[in-house]
């Protein structure tokens, strides 16, 4: 039972990271009904940006966030204004196919620049620092940081969406883009800011992922799928539901992996499909 307990604890902490993958995805879907297939590849792109920043400036990865987050936010704003805004409409197909094309371009671009080799960010003592609770359970500082940061991101987003002018603009374009425009909002700019925000969260998630695990140019789609599964398992109603979805996914993967590492990711997919079969609106979603 002890090793199961440890697997559950580790899964909960990993869930924080999955929730961060998911929140960026859920945010832009909520605001502009856009599903960005390149989301996972942007996470990996952020990891490579962090790699360059840490190597050239010799910074600790967490300090490098101060540079990586603004860079990714600008990339997100540019992508939205230059690409996605032109493809969005009542038909979801153009935006889907454009983001799918972008995903393939980012993957192969990274492959050309950095080769298919595994990379990892070096974070010194932080990588291994941990608190031992019992013989089998020890809590790593870095995984705990993931969960804490995910919670802080959610609290920050709640504040932003419900207490600030830009949050009001996000909610307005989400409710009715045409009326929002009539009220004087520049929808294209608001959409751009939403994607910039999503990519800022992506940058945070990408750097944390890159300290924790190896990455290579082909790892993006799996991150997209984890985020997507967390969103659907949680039900499309709140960020807290998404966090719960991420944690459930993390726990299922971690427990399955403790029995047989080959089942780790597959078990997560199967859990997602079971939720879809039994509760299509997600575990915490309202029944439509």
């Amino acid at each position, binding site marked *: 039972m002890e090793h199961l307990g440890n697997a559950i604890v580790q899964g909960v902490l990993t869930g924080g990271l999955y929730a961060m993958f998911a929140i960026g995805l859920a945010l832009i879907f909520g605001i502009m009904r856009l599903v960005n297939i390149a989301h996972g590849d942007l996470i990996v792109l952020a990891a490579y940006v962090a790699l360059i920043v840490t190597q050239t400036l010799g910074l600790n990865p967490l300090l490098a966030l101060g540079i990586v987050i603004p860079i990714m936010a600008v990339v997100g704003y540019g992508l939205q204004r230059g690409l996605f805004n032109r493809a969005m409409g009542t038909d979801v197909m153009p935006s889907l196919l454009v983001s799918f094309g972008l995903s393939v371009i980012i993957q192969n671009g990274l492959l050309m620049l950095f080769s298919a080799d595994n990379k990892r960010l070096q974070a010194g003592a932080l990588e291994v620092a941990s608190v031992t609770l019992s013989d089998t359970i020890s809590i790593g500082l870095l995984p705990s940081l993931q969960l804490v940061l995910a919670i802080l991101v959610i609290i920050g987003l709640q504040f932003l969406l419900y207490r600030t002018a830009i949050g009001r603009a996000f909610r307005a374009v989400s409710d009715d883009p045409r009326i929002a425009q009539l009220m004087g909002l520049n929808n294209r700019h608001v959409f751009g800011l939403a994607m910039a925000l999503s990519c800022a969260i992506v940058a945070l998630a990408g750097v944390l992922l890159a300290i924790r695990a190896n990455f290579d140019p082909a790892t993006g789609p799996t991150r997209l799928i984890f985020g997507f599964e967390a969103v659907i398992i949680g039900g499309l109603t709140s960020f807290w539901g998404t966090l719960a979805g991420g944690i459930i996914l993390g726990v299922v993967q971690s427990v399955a992996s403790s029995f047989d590492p080959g089942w780790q990711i*597959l078990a997560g997919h199967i859990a997602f499909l079971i939720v879809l079969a039994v509760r299509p609106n997600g575990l915490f979603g309202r029944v439509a």
Partner: protein
Amino acid sequence: MASLDVRRSSWLTHLATAGGLVLTALLLSAALWASNDTLRLATDIFLYIALACLWNFLAGYAGLVSVGQQAYVGLGGYGLFALAAKADVPALYALPLLGCMAALLSVPIAKLLFRLRGAYFTIGSWVVAEVFHLGAILIVPLGGGSGMSLPIRAAQALGPTPHDRFVTTYLTALVLLLAVLTMIFVVLRSRMGLALTAIRDNEAAARSNGVNVDRVKLIIYVAAASATAMVGALIFIQKLRISPDAGFSVNDWTALIVFMVVIGGIGTFEGPIVGALIYFLLGETLATLGPVYLIILGAVAIAVMLIEPRGIWGFVRARWGLQLLPLSFLVRPSASKIEK
């Protein structure tokens, strides 16, 4: 105003039908005179055209934008290898069997995926393909992560010499492609084709007019899955070797296909064929570029989507009012009335 002449055929469709028959006869006769390399390339082209037409059938006509069709390509490949290696089923008999198996399996998958609307269906289809991919890695009797080769006796059952085997695969691929094209053509000309057009134009309106949207989509999904699995089986007869990464590759069996269809013209019968032919024409010179070729294709597909979403064939059809197959209706003032 009553004097309108509405018909599907024109001199061009008659010409195209005649041309198509001549081309088919020519391609059939190639089995007698073409070299091994030519046969092999032609087989690849047939199979890619079939995949492109099937993906277009799903996305362009039924609005089911799947990025998980590699699930069925790999399923067909693995199914064929398993039947040949473990049950000694000859490859050509295995094909229809695999088509039926894929159809049966795709029904519950469709029921599950259809719970996800629009864009979420797309990512859901990818999850299913990943389940197949990771599942294949765990099946040790089929070689696990490293995959397996087609047993020599199974390959020899296709023909005693390599040339015979190329001819058999070539003719099977050609027949399969013709069957796929005929199926799509017949469906589009039928009541279901009308329902598809109605769904594409306005799904809510189609429902309220009595179109059973979910049933239509289910039939299209199952038909596409079944045919895709048979194409997949033939692809891996060509390659003689399969592994989870090759069989369930999203780049090879979905990304390339999507780019072909988008560039050629999504939602048109001819577009995927045009796109696949362009891919092979350019591929001969550009494929050596590797990742750069995929980047170029992706960029061109995005540009097409933003500038001319109907693709090359959609543009040609709209610009000159051409259509090679008698599918959509042409409306003209009736000739006899004009004289009056």
